[in-house]
């Protein structure tokens, strides 16, 4: 099946089975290997991408369903060498260790921050913990990721005010 998918802002034409997983389409056909496979069953969130702006597990999306739709992967978060606030804070706060879950977390957290779903106030910690619960990390105990996402949310919020 001929598919036309907008990936990170550019329309990509791919010939693939509609049953192929979006994850495999990204990694094998488009060689966008930033999106990782951790489980293949929608549990770990390492393969998180945005589909029409919402975070989804790309291992659970059929390629056919993406025809004519918009996909954002970790490769699409930064603008050139300018990292997204979430990426910058994950580095600064120590939120990435082995890094295999990090692209999925960066994509999901960038979505939360860009949509203003994380308050700058006291509720932020609980919000981050609930909204990122679909991303499993085994290295960090999550603490420094929470700090990073909150720092990024504040950064983005103050940027909006300016």
């Amino acid at each position, binding site marked *: *099946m001929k598919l036309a998918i907008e990936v990170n802002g550019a329309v990509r034409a791919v010939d693939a089975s*509609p049953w192929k997983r979006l994850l495999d389409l990204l990694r094998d056909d488009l060689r966008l290997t930033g999106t990782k496979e951790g489980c293949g069953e*929608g549990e770990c969130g390492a393969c998180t991408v945005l589909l029409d702006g919402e975070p989804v597990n790309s291992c659970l999306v059929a390629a056919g369903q993406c025809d004519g739709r918009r996909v954002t992967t970790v490769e699409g978060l930064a603008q050139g060498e300018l990292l997204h606030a979430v990426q910058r804070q994950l580095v600064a706060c120590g939120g990435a260790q082995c890094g295999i879950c990090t692209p999925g977390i960066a994509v999901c957290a960038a979505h939360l921050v860009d949509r203003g779903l994380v308050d700058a106030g006291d509720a932020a910690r*609980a919000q981050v913990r609930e909204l*990122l*619960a679909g991303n499993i990390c085994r290295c960090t105990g999550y603490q420094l990721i929470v700090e990073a996402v909150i720092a990024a949310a504040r950064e983005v919020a103050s940027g909006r005010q300016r």
Partner: protein
Amino acid sequence: MTAYLRPRDLDEALAARAAHPDWLVLAGGTDLMVNANHRPAPAGILDLWRLVAICLVRRTDEAIGGAIAIGAGTTWLEVERDPHVRAQLAPLAAAAREIGALQIQARATLGGNVGTSSPVGDSLPVLLALDAELELASPRGRRRVAYRDWCTGYRTTQLAADELIVAAHVPIPGPATRTAWRKVGTRRAQSISKVMGAAAITLDGDVVVDARIALGAIADRPVRIAAAEAAVRGLRLTDAAAAARAAVASAIRPIDDIRSTASYRREVAANLVARFFGPAAAGPAMS
């Protein structure tokens, strides 16, 4: 090679369903795509994802007190964020929020939960407790089925081979009815249910006039607990809690499996239901 169709409207979807009964009916894929690369490719995919005709949430006034119609293709994220659902169907919004986590909620649909009909389907006890109806369509026409009659066994339903689920119609509980919901899962988020309970309890003062009590993950399908409903009728709330606890504990026959034990499920199911009649059971806290 797998065929693929994204129908433009419900009629085209129904025609394709009738023409290709062996095709996979796919929406959010959160169940059907698990380990997809190790599953045989289907003959075809009938893709209902974002089919507009089944993605609406709207208030209807067809019954006394009104109802909310939720399209089968509505995602749980949309259900949870819908102002009508949040205001009028709090247990459904709460259940939506505990289905997987954000990535699952953004894809999993009401129709998928109802159609898969897993005994651990998170929304299903709520649909039972709220006495929802399902609207089905086929080339033969439309029909409605009370959700309490929907499940026919372990992961089997009344859905006919040429039918699609269009919507759930959920009556809005009246002001004298309190509703409640609780899921106890394997962990605090992104979890499989061990026990779920939902209830709609109609009161006259503090006397129980009527109650619908539903449980999930304790049988081969979500179930109403008629014995408990009968046991609480006419009792004051304080007495109803103990009566419900005893009735639930003796009515259910849960199983041991890798996620929990029969005795735990029985005890917790009884505790959850009893708590629905307790003083603080004003429904789950929603932020």
